[in-house]
Each structure stands twice: as C-alpha cells, then as structure tokens.
C-alpha cells in the first residue's frame, strides 16, 4: 500500500468523494434552515400565546378563558421543559422508532429528523421569544391598546417586529447550533454531513482525514452564516438619519421614497 501524507489523503478523499461531502453538506444546511425557520415560527406562536393576559378585561376569578389559557400554558411549559431537558439524539431515537413501534407510522428518516430538529429548536426559541417580548418596553403595548389594538394586533404590529430584531442574534446562534447539532441525526440514518463522512471511513480505513474535512466544512458553514447574520442585523437597523419633508411634497408625494 502506498504511503500518503495527511494532505494527500484529504485530496484523494475530496477528489473521489466530493459528491458525498456535497450531499451531506446540503442536507446539513437544509436541516438547519428548515429546523431554525420552523422552530422560530413555533417559538413566535408560543411566545405570543404565553403573553396573552390571563384576565380579559380584568375579570377576576375563573372564567372559561382563563382556564383554557391555563391548560394551554401548562402544555406549552411541559413541551419546552421536556424538549430542552432531553438530548436531541435521544429525542431522535424516540420519535423515529417510537412512531413505528407504537403508532405504527412508518416514517422515513428525513421527515423524522426534520420533526426532531424543529421541535427541539421550537422549545429553545419559545424561551428566546419570551425574553424578546419582555425586552420591549410595556408602555408601547399600553399605547397600542390605548388606540384600540387587541393583543394580536399589538403583537404583530408593535411588539414582535421589535422583539424579533432583539432576538435575531440569539436566533442566528440557534442556526449555528443546528448546523452542528444536526449531526446527531445520523443515529436515525439521516444522510447529513456527519453520516456521509462516517460512511467514508471504510473505503481506506482512514478516520482522521474524512472528519478533518467535515470539521472544515462545518467551520466554514458556521463562519459564513454568522457573518451573513451580522450583515442582516445591520441592514435591519436601517439608516441612522432621516430627511425632513416639505409639507407640500409630503402631501403630493403619496408614497414613501425608497
């Protein structure tokens, strides 16, 4: 057998197995994007539900509404606690094999993986969103209510746009975590980057080099995505200056200048 240096092994692996690395990378990125986006949506919904005032109009005592809200809140609390309190790898096993075993649902590995990463991210995002909503000065919510907005309108138009801006760094963090932690889904045979890399070991009985390549790809992914998020944050903050408008111009203009 030929003696090769580490670099030569890596070059050889890339030359021969680049489609595997590419497929694994694509799968990893897709899992991270879907998991973060869907988890974000779950987090927003839970965040809004958990901030609904328990006493509509301040009626004290038990009403149907406050009982329902109490039950929903309890379920949501259990959801976040359980999913944050157990490893994603275990959740993957339970959902993938559990569904087949007990519910007799024959679920493919990929959908199962997407469900796991989404539910997991959702649990973390729910807490992040709650913190984000809490960070918005309550006066603005009162002002929104004072012009007749209900809880949903207040959330959608006033609180969430600001809360989302506040939690964007934390959301980016979740995305980076998902890029890396999607690797645990290899236990249910989701063909992401770790799974693909693991499969390459047997061709040359080399373990170090394939995983060094995988590490480099993971690092590149996380580095690029955190830079992109930084750019997005800057863009969302908008310009720091504004222009005065001539009244006549403002009246005639009709539309805001881009």
């Amino acid at each position, binding site marked *: 057998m030929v003696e090769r240096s580490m670099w030569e092994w890596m070059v050889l692996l890339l030359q021969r197995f680049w489609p595997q690395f590419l497929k694994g990378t694509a799968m990893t990125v897709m899992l991270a994007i879907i998991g973060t986006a869907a988890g974000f949506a779950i987090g927003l919904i839970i965040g809004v539900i958990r901030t609904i005032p328990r006493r509509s109009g301040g009626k004290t005592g038990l009403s149907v509404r406050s009982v329902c809200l109490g039950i929903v809140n309890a379920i949501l609390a259990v959801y976040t606690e359980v999913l944050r309190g157990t490893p994603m790898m275990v959740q993957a096993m339970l959902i993938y094999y559990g569904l087949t075993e007990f519910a007799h649902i024959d679920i493919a590995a990929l959908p199962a993986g997407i469900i796991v990463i989404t539910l997991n991210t959702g649990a973390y995002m729910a807490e992040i969103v709650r913190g984000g909503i809490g960070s918005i000065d309550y006066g603005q919510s*009162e002002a929104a209510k*004072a012009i*007749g*907005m209900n809880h949903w*309108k207040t959330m959608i138009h*006033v609180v969430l746009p600001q809360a989302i801006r506040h939690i964007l760094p934390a959301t980016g963090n979740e995305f980076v975590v998902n890029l890396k932690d999607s690797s645990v889904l290899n236990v249910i045979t989701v063909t992401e980057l770790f799974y693909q890399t693991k499969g390459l070991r047997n061709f040359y009985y080399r373990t170090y080099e394939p995983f060094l390549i995988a590490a480099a790809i993971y690092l590149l992914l996380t580095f690029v995505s955190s830079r992109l998020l930084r750019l997005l944050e800057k863009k969302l903050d908008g310009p720091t200056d*504004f222009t005065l408008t*001539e009244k006549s111009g403002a009246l005639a203009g009709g539309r805001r200048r881009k």
Partner: protein
Amino acid sequence: MTNVIEVKDLRKSFGHREILKGIDLTVGQGEVVSVIGSSGSGKSTFLRCVNLLEWPTAGEILFKGESITRYGFKIPDYREKVGMVFQSFNLFANMNVLQNCTIGQIKVAGRNRDEARAIALDCLDQVGMSDYIRAKPRQLSGGQQQRVAIARALCMQPDALLFDEPTSALDPEMVGDVLNVISGLTHTGLTLIVVTHEMAFARDVSDRVVFMDGGVIAEQGSPEDIFTKPKSERLQEFLTRFLS
C-alpha cells in the same frame, strides 16, 4: 351638555393597598378637566382606570351612559374613542412618525392607506410635526415625541383624550410646546382630562379643576375657585407648596 364619562364610586386596590377610595366624577362633552394633586394621590391610577389599563376593583365607569366594565363590552372600540397620551410618550419605536399615526387608523379604524395618511398629516400639522414624518421616534426630542403621541391619539378621531402627566418627562423648555398643543385642543369640542403638575396650565386652560388627595377627590371647582378660594386645608397646603 351630555355626559361623556361618568365615574361612580370608583375603587382600585393593588394587593391590600387601596389607591382609589371611591371617586365620583362626571365629565361633559367638550369639557376640559384638570386633575391635580401630589404624587401618590391616585391621579394616574384614576386616569388609567378610565381607559381600563387598570381594572377597577369596584365601582362603575359609564361612557355615554354605557358601563364599560360590564361583560361583553368591546374594550378596543371604547379605547378607540377615548385616546390616551402617556408621560413617557410610548411611541412605537419600530415605526416612523407617519406610521405611528396611521397604524391605528388602518388596523383598528379600518381606513384605507391614503385616507389614513391624509388624516395623519392633518393631525401632525396640528401639533407642528408634519415635517418629521420620516423620522423614527429615537431621533426626536422628548417634546417632539410627545407632540407626535398627541397626533397619534388625535388620528383616531376620539371623543375624549386622557393625558397622564404629559409634560412630566420633558425638559422645562419643551413643556411649553406641548402645553400649547394641548391648549389648542380645548376649543375643538374634544373632551379632555389632563392629569398635570402644571398649575398655570390647569388654571388657564381648564373648565374645571379636580384636586385629588389620598385616593379621593378632595375638592373640585372652577379654576378660579380652586386656585384663589381653596376651601380644604389640604388643597391650601398643596397650593402653597406648589406656587411658592
């Protein structure tokens, strides 16, 4: 003069502390009522109860004869008709001045964009802020923010406006601007209830002055009566402290 707001034996407790101990007040259409009193006398709590930002513990509040605390009363609709201006402005930080003034019109009152924009510009003009429609709240001074907040409330075309110490968070030199704007509203038929520490304003602008002390209305009357012929000892004390 029809009654816009009638408050009957309004009580409010936070925990075991009773802040409002039975307030009775009737405010007629177009009337300008100033509420004065020392800090902690319950002025702000009273005003917040009128807009149901605080829920009364007991008592009744009628808006045009209808109880606002009864079950099934449409609180958002009521708040649309009774605007509120806060001590800390509370402009929507994610929107520019124009959007602050149009969002409620579009999303609550159901007006279309152009109509809302026209009304907003009109109201902003009234408070002297129509040149700033593209500014974000954080780019404005306190006085400017408060004038926008007043315009935002006016845009909903309410029957009554409640002011909760509108000038208390402002630099002295900006107080005048905001007070002028509020004075300008007094001849428009709008009902105003103004909680304030500005005695000159209360004296010159209001139809009636209400002095609150210890959670009750200790004295009320015309500005002249209140400021020149105070009957109760507490009011005399309060005025000496304030006017000296």
